[in-house]
Each structure stands twice: as C-alpha cells, then as structure tokens.
C-alpha cells in the first residue's frame, strides 16, 4: 500500500513538472523585438512583402500562445510556440535585411545617377561654349544656357533629396535632369554637325 502511495505521489510530481511548462519568453521577446527592428528599418517602405510575412508569423505565434493559455496548466505545451517564435524572428530579421539591401541599392542608384548626370552637365556646359557662333545663334545659345542653369538647380534638389535619405525622389529628379541635359547636348551637337564640325 505504501509503495502504491509512493508511486502515486511520484507520478503526480512528474506530471506537475511536465505540465507546468513555461512559455518560451526569451524567444517570444526576441521575435517581437526583431519585428520592431524591421519596422524601424523602414521595411514597410523598402521590403513590404517581407515585413508582411514577419507580421503574419508573429500573429501566428500569438495565436498559438493564446491557445496554450486556454488549456489547463498541466496540459500546456510550448514546443510549437518555440518553433513559431524562431520562425517569426527569422522572418523579421529577413525583412530588416531586405530593407537594408533595398535602401542600399536605391542609395547607390541615386548616387550613381547623380554623379553621371553631374558629369553630363559639366560636359554639356563645356560643349556649349563651342557652339557655333554665327549670325543669329546667340538667342539659341542663351536659351540652351538657361536650360542648363535650370538643370543645375534641379540637380542640386536631387542631391539634397539623396542626402536626406529620400532615394526614390532623388532618382526621379536626377533622371528628369538627365533627360533635359541630354536634349541640350543633342541640340548643340546637331548645330555643330550642321556647321560641318566647325566650332
């Protein structure tokens, strides 16, 4: 009888130890912190799909945690929650990484485009001094110079946008400037060609 009682007590203690599982708080906190980091890294703008996947993963984790809380304490199991927390952390970290990569790509694209546009502008400003200076050409040259001055102002706006991290704006502004300067350069080259290459 005493052996039987002892066995009962042992089983009860074992059940209590197994049943009173704690939620994987460290992993849960890590997942939530990773999601906040992704949002701070502007993943909503630069990696919206990845952020959406991370948010879904955290939502699944929360649903699983709630489901376990609803159970009788001895019946709770957190292995699935632990896995979901790990997946959510990975998804959030991936969103952060993708956002960083996309920002870097846009920053590089903006800087490259601004640099190439700056070179084109310098080249065209030099070229215009070699434009044919014949009868009646001064109005055309003055007009083209006005176009280049306006382009210089707009390129400065593009540089300011890039400096403040607005890379999409910077790219759009630089592209519009490049189109304008290229059309001026083409006009000068055509005028030079029409004069038989004499400048």
């Amino acid at each position: 009888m005493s052996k039987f009682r002892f066995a009962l007590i042992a089983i009860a203690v074992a059940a209590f130890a197994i049943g009173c599982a704690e939620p994987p708080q460290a992993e849960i906190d890590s997942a939530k912190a990773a999601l906040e980091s992704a949002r701070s890294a502007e993943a909503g703008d630069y990696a919206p799909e990845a952020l959406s996947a991370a948010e879904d993963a955290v939502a699944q984790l929360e649903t699983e945690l709630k489901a376990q809380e609803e159970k009788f304490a001895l019946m709770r199991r957190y292995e699935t929650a632990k896995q979901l927390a790990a997946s959510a952390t990975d998804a959030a970290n991936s969103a952060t990484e993708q956002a960083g990569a996309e920002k870097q790509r846009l920053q590089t694209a903006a800087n490259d485009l601004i640099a190439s546009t700056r070179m084109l502008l310098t080249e065209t400003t030099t070229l215009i001094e070699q434009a044919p200076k014949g009868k009646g050409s001064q109005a055309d040259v003055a007009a083209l110079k006005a176009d280049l001055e306006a382009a210089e102002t707009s390129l400065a706006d593009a540089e300011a946008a890039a400096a403040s991290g607005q890379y999409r704006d910077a790219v759009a502004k630089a592209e519009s400037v490049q189109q304008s300067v290229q059309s001026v350069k083409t006009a000068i080259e055509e005028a030079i060609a029409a004069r038989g290459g004499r400048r």
Partner: protein
Amino acid sequence: MLRRILFWLCITSVLALVVAGAIPIFLGHTEPPEQGRAVAERALAEARASTARTWAPELLRRAEVTMRLNLEEESRQRHRLLPLRDFRVARAGFDRVEEQALAAVTEAARRSASAKDLAAEELAKAETAVASAEEVLDAAGRQVDLRGRLARARMLLAEARLRFESGDYPYARDRAALAEAQAHGVVKRTTEMMERYVDAGEVARWQRWVEETVRWSRETGEPAIVVSKDDHRVTLYVGGRAVETYPADIGLNNLSGKVRSGDHATPEGRYKVTSKRNIGQTAYYKALMLDYPNHEDRKRFDELRRKGQIPRGAGPGSLIEIHGDGGRAKDWTRGCVAVSNDHMDELFARVRVGTPVTIVGGRGEGGVFSTLVRNYAAVNHGSDDTALD
C-alpha cells in the same frame, strides 16, 4: 413518501441540468470556430500583403483590431465549462474580420485607381501647359529668365511622369500640378509682354502711319516700304498698291520698341532709306540703311534718360537696316529687319535713297504676338505668376 418525492426531485433536477447542458453542445455553440478563425487569418494576411497598407491603412487597422478582439472573446469562452461556452459572438466576429479585410483590399484598389486617374488628369493638364509655354516662348525671342522657368517646368513634368510610372500617384500629381503652375506663369508673363501689340492706342497710331505712307505712295507713284513686326512681314507699295510681301525676321528683343543701343529691338517709326549697300559693302548680303534715330526717336530717348531709364553711357543706337541673310522664321537680329537674299535682291532693285520705310508693331490681330495674346487670354485670366519662384 417524502423520501421518495425528494429522490425523484433530485433525479429530475439532475436530468434537467444534463439536458440544459447538452442543448448548446448539440446546437454546436460550444464548438470553437477553428475554421472561421483560419479564414479570417488568411483574409487578414492577404489584406496586409495587398496595397491596403498604403491606400486604406485605417480599414486594415480596423480589421486587425476586430481580429484581436475576437481572439480574446474566443479565449474567454474556452476558459468556461463546456456547457457554458458560447462561441457564436466569436464566430460572427471572425466572419466580420474576413469582410473587413476584403473591404480594405477593395477600397484600396478603388482609391489607388482614383488617385491614378487624378494623377493622369493632372499630367495631361501639365503637358498641355508646358506645350503652351513652349509655343509662346518660342515666339518671344530673348526671354532668358522665362526660358529657365520653362526648363524647370519640363523637368518637374518629367519627374511627375517617372513617379506615375512607379505607381506613386499622389507625388506624381503634386509634381504635375507644380509643372502646370510654372508653365502657366511663363505663358502669363510672356503674353503680358506681348499685349502692346493689341493695345488699341498703339494699334491706331500704327494704322495711321501705314495709311499716311500708302497715301504718299499713291499720290507720288513712288515705292514705299511698310514693315509689320507682329506679322513678320515687309510689304512693298508702288503707287499705293501692295505689290510684294516678304517674310521678315526682326530683332531678338521682339516684344519691345527700340529705346537705346544694344537693346536688340527693332524700332517703330517712320524712316527713310539713306543709302544702299551692295554685296561686299555689308556683312548681310545687301542692305538698305535707315535714318534711325529720327527726331521722334531722339525725343523719346532724351525723355527716358531724364527719367533715369537709360543706362549711363548708352545712346539711342544706330545702323538699323533692312538687309539679307534673313528669312529664317525666327527673330535674331540686333534690331535690323532681315529678309532672304532673293527677296533682298528684289527690294534692292525697286527702292532708292529716300524711299519711306514705316515700321509698325502690327494690326492688332492676325500676327504672331497678337494671336498668342488672344489665344491665351482665358488661361491668363485664371492663373497667377506667383508660381514663378
């Protein structure tokens, strides 16, 4: 007896409790809404992945809040004893989440399409405005400052197009609106400068000069020349009849009358040919020298100098001619009137020293500048030039 009654009362009570507890179970109210929750989660995930985040964030948030509240409601019911659980509210709530998520997606699509339409409309207006500004500025000759403004308008328009193509409709609309305002400002400022060509007083004065010149030609039978700046035309009269008309280019500063040396404007007034320069005697093929400045020109110059409107050291100018190397369909001279060499040959042969040359602004209509003023009067009425900043 009493014991028997109590016994059967107990049995009846127990049976009643069991039946009462079984009814909700039988009706399915106690069954957790697993499927409903899964559908709601899927709908919410799809809404998050769609453009709802950008275009209908408040509707997406509403769906998310509803989801959270119903998850809590489901949890509350799960904590109850089985017969007392009622998941009907949570089940209905999850259905609502699905509806709200779908509504967010639908509304986002509608708003995006509407924004796209508005941006496209603004882009079209901006393109029309820039084309108008190009038209008026092409005619206006030397207006370097306005040319720079037009270039800015073109670049704003290009930027708007690029952002439209990448789906950023609000920004595209904003840039297009700026481009339109800039371009309208250019049109307004330029056509205001052209308004002297439709001024009733000026037009009447010019008409009178032309009539006097034509009458003189009729009375004397001699040739006379009338130059109309707005029409860009040189007309040769002989015996009072217009016998030839030639296209003409005028001064680079084509919106003003001549005031001083170096202003590149063609003067308006009544002049005479003072000498004829043949090939080799002028830089522009052949030339008919005029007696600018005449008495009226000097009088006007002196008056402006008294008012301080003439730079120190500047004179009224000279060397105004009708010469060749023209017919370029643009205004490029430093104040002279230029015709093609073939037309110059004809004029040269038919006029002599002393031939009157009357240069006027125009007839007030039908010319390059007068037409632009009238065409853009409606645009100018509705715009202001504060956009030229």
